[in-house]
Structures are given as structure tokens and as C-alpha cells.
């Protein structure tokens, strides 16, 4: 974790979102520093994904602010900027890894085109260059280069997930949002994906916000942890601290529910 930077990359202040009467998330505040990975854990319906969507510009909160340190202007409210700026941010400086790779991939075009899409979206118009970059990224996510022209539907779940990650990282984003990136994968594939994520985060100095209900995943790649319950953060701190010495009764319950093998 790199604390030498002076300003946080993303600041959430009192983020609140209701669904009618129901609480999505309420009064959540946190700072994300450059190079840091924050995990959001909690059971289903605790507001993890709502919080992720609020902080990633996909769901405006009813109150509270989310600020991101843009390259040009420093900390700015992502819901105050124009939609054009926000969408630009989303496809350059941000990445979003969906739980189901089919949500994040273009299933009807080849792996190379999937990775190249962001490059073309920001104005890259040289076929050879785009293809070369796509090939490089396929290598980085442990693909054989000769799969570059294959359709994502011919890939296994784990491969699709790795392709989705490559597709997001190709523009060298500074912040990646991940919604249960290992959900639905079997354990050995999960382990490989986690290893890969750890390496990439390390090499690229990425910051990430990771939603998971799997405490083992959180332990492996997050630096800090926020435990959510009924839309509120009940406990937060360094990952090891929270998991080894849980203070809140709910966290204690969560930690003790893990099957020890």
C-alpha cells in the first residue's frame, strides 16, 4: 500500500441510497488511496453492490457525494460533472469487472475486438497497433496468443473472466471496480484468478474496490475491509485486523461462519 500520495483517489462522503422505503446503503464514508484495494463484504442484500454502483457513477445516491481525483482537475464530484465527462472517465480511468463476464463482454465479437474496444473508443484507429496491444494483454492474463480471434463463447468461465479483466485494463485505468469477480468459478480457477489479480494490481499500481461475500477472497487481495450489514458499514479497518480480531458482533458471526478445513 502506497501512502506517500497526499490526496485520496476517491472519496465517498455520507453516501445514501434508498429504494423507495428500503435502505440500499446509508451514510457510508470512506477514502480510497492510490494503490489501495478496499474490500466490501457482507451477506446478500447488505448493500454492497448498491454502494459499489453509487461510487462507480452508475447509480446516483440520494444524498452524499462521491469525488474522484481526475487527472486534469483533481478531486471532483462524479455526479456534478457532465455525463460526457463521466462516461469518458468510465472507459478510460476506470474499469468495471462484472460478476458475470457476459455482462461485461461483447459476446458476438472476438477476444481481440473485446480488448480493442476501449482503445477504439478513445480514438485509436490503427488496426495493427490495436491488435498488437490486444495480443500483449491476452498474454498478461495468461491466454495463448492464438486465441485472439476466438469468440468469448468458446472460452470457459474463468477464461471469460480473465478476458473481461484484460478488456478493462487495456486503457491503464487507475481505479477498477469489481463485483464478485470470482463468483461462479470453481476454487482452483478462483485461486488462479486471484493470483493474477494480485500480480496485476501490484504491477500496475491499481486501486480497486472489490465487492465479495467470500472472506477468503477479501483476505487475499484487499488491504482494507468494510463490513456491511443492512445498508450500513458496521466495521472497517485493515483486512487482517478485521478478520483476525473482529469487534462487531456481526463481523464475529461472519468470520466464525467460515468453514475451517
Amino acid at each position, binding site marked *: 500500500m502506497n501512502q506517500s500520495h497526499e490526496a485520496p483517489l476517491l472519496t465517498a462522503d455520507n453516501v445514501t441510497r434508498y429504494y423507495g422505503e428500503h435502505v440500499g446503503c446509508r451514510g457510508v464514508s470512506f477514502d480510497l488511496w492510490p494503490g489501495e484495494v478496499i474490500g466490501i463484504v457482507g451477506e446478500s442484500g447488505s448493500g454492497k453492490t448498491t454502494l459499489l454502483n453509487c461510487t462507480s457513477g452508475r447509480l446516483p445516491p440520494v444524498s452524499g457525494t462521491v469525488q474522484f481525483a481526475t487527472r486534469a482537475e483533481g478531486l471532483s464530484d462524479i455526479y456534478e460533472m457532465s455525463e460526457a465527462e463521466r462516461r469518458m472517465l468510465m472507459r478510460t480511468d476506470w474499469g468495471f469487472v462484472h460478476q458475470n463476464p457476459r455482462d461485461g463482454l*461483447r459476446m458476438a465479437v472476438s477476444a*481481440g*475486438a473485446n480488448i*480493442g474496444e476501449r482503445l*477504439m473508443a478513445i480514438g485509436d*484507429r490503427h*488496426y495493427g497497433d490495436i491488435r498488437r496491444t490486444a495480443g500483449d494483454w491476452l498474454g498478461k492474463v495468461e491466454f495463448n496468443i492464438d486465441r485472439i480471434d476466438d469468440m468469448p463463447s468458446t472460452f470457459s468461465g474463468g477464461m471469460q473472466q480473465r478476458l473481461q479483466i484484460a478488456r478493462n485494463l487495456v486503457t491503464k485505468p487507475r481505479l477498477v471496480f469489481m463485483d464478485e469477480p470470482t463468483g461462479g468459478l470453481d476454487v482452483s480457477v478462483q485461486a488462479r484468478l486471484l493470483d493474477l489479480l494480485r500480480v496485476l494490481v501490484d504491477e500496475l499500481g491499481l486501486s480497486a474496490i472489490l465487492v465479495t461475500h467470500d472472506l477468503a477472497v477479501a483476505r487475499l487481495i484487499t488491504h482494507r475491509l468494510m463490513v456491511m450489514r443492512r445498508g450500513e458499514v458496521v466495521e472497517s479497518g485493515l483486512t487482517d485486523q478485521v478478520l483476525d480480531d473482529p469487534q462487531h458482533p456481526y463481523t464475529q458471526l461472519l468470520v466464525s461462519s467460515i468453514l475451517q478445513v
Partner: protein
Amino acid sequence: MDTIDHNRSENAATTDDYNFAYLDEQTKRMVRRSLLKAVAIPGYQVPFGSREMPLSYGWGTGGIQVTASVIGPDDTLKVIDQGADDTTNAVSIRKFFAKTAGIKTTEETEQATVIQTRHRIPETQLKEGQVLVYQVPIPEPLRWLEARETETRKMHALEEYGTMHVRLYEDITRHGKIATSYDYPVIVNDRYLMRPSPIPKFDNPKMDQNPALQLFGAGREKRIYAVPPYTKVKSLDFEDHPFEVQKWDQSCAICRSDNSFLDEVITDDQGGRMFVCSDTDYCQKRVAQQQREKTSNPGEPSV
């Protein structure tokens, strides 16, 4: 574009049962307002209240409404279908306007003031004052990449056209070159992405800086768009795979033209085939010209 019904020719085939050019004046006014907006924002799709027309969707209901709204008693209409003046669709639409508007019709590109077209731009260079009306089946260039209309509109508004290149990338990956050969996407006036209707990409360069006014009508999808005279129209491509038009090894079997769009025609069931101009007017003009030259210079060998 005065459409008041006082100048109708005394053609026996015309009918008084309809308003001039079939549509009522309120509808024409509505269509014209959309047309004005379309001309003001080149390439932008303007919604309009498309009417039921006495022909089925897909046969030119959009084009026919645009033609009905811009045509006046002094206009001369030409209608082509795949370049030909004598196919069912072209003949029917020409007769339709001859009957409901009593206007003059022609098969000659130079003589026409309004040309309604399906799938071609005439080979003969258009000139100022002419109006080219395209029949458009699907106006939205982003449709096969993004199914949501709300999203495609937003993409147009924010000029997010990167995904269009994904399609071309995929073409090159699969075929080694950009294989899209018709309805080839263009950027109009450096701003809006536009579908030029299913014309062959051979015709795309003709849209660029064309002196004629180009209007596009999509009846089923209820959209109108336009390319005003002398507007930049650029076909999408990659730096290392530049835009190219179709080429043929043959020249036209009838008029020997080697720079027009050729159709392959099967002549028998023994594998016999020939290539002929798709633009019938252009082809006939050239043949007539060649015959004139032959009769005036009988000593010269024919071309």
C-alpha cells in the same frame, strides 16, 4: 416546392380524389419541418410522424413521404431501384406520383429535379438544385451493436462511436479486409455517424461534397435525416486499412463502361453470366452516344 393544386397537367391518368402528391397538407408540413431540422443538423436522425402509405413497409414508405413533401407541380421525378428505372418498385412509385400529383416523370438523371432511389446513387454526377431521396430500411447505424434506443441516442449525443470500429475490426480479423460492402457507415460533417441506406460502398464517395441535396426517409422507423449540398461525408476506416470501393475485372457487357457499378447477371443455367451497369439510364446513354459516333464516323472501328 409550392404544392397548391392549380397547375396540374391535364393528364388523363391523374386523379382528383387525392390531395396533390397523395399526402394532406398538414402531413407535408410536418414532414417538411422534420426535413428542415435534418438539413440544419447534417446526419442527425429527426423523428417524424410517419404515415401509412399505400405500399408495404420496406418498399419505400419513408422515401415516398419525403418525395411527396418536397415535390411541386413543376418538378420532374425519376425513380430508381438498384439503379434501374424499369423495375416494379420504381415503375410503381413513378406511376403513383404521375397519378396523384400529375407531375412529369423521366428516366434521365439530368432531366430530373427530384430522384427517389433505392440502393444506388446515379452514375451521372448530380448538380445543384437536384434532390436525391433515399429509401432507408434501418436508419440507426449503431443498432446491431446496441439494442437500446435510449442508449444509441446518448451515444450520438456524446459522439461515442468507438464501437462502430469494433465491427470493422472484426471484419478485418475474419476476412483480412473490411468486408462490409453496402450500407457502409459514414461520418457526416465531422460529427454524426450515419447509415447511407443500403447503397454499395462504391457510391459512398459520391455522397461527399455532392452539389445535390440528399434526403433520407425511413418510414417504418419514423426517422428522417439529410446531407445538405457540399457537405463532408467520410467513410469509416483504419489508418492501415483505408476505405476502398469495389472494383471489377470486367467492363459492362453492353456499354463497355469500366468505371460504373456492375451487376452480375446470370444468363442461362450453363454457368453463363455477364456484367452490366446497374444504372440503366447511364448505360443506355452511353450506348446511344456510341451509336451516334459510329454513324457520324462510319470509318472508325467501334469502341
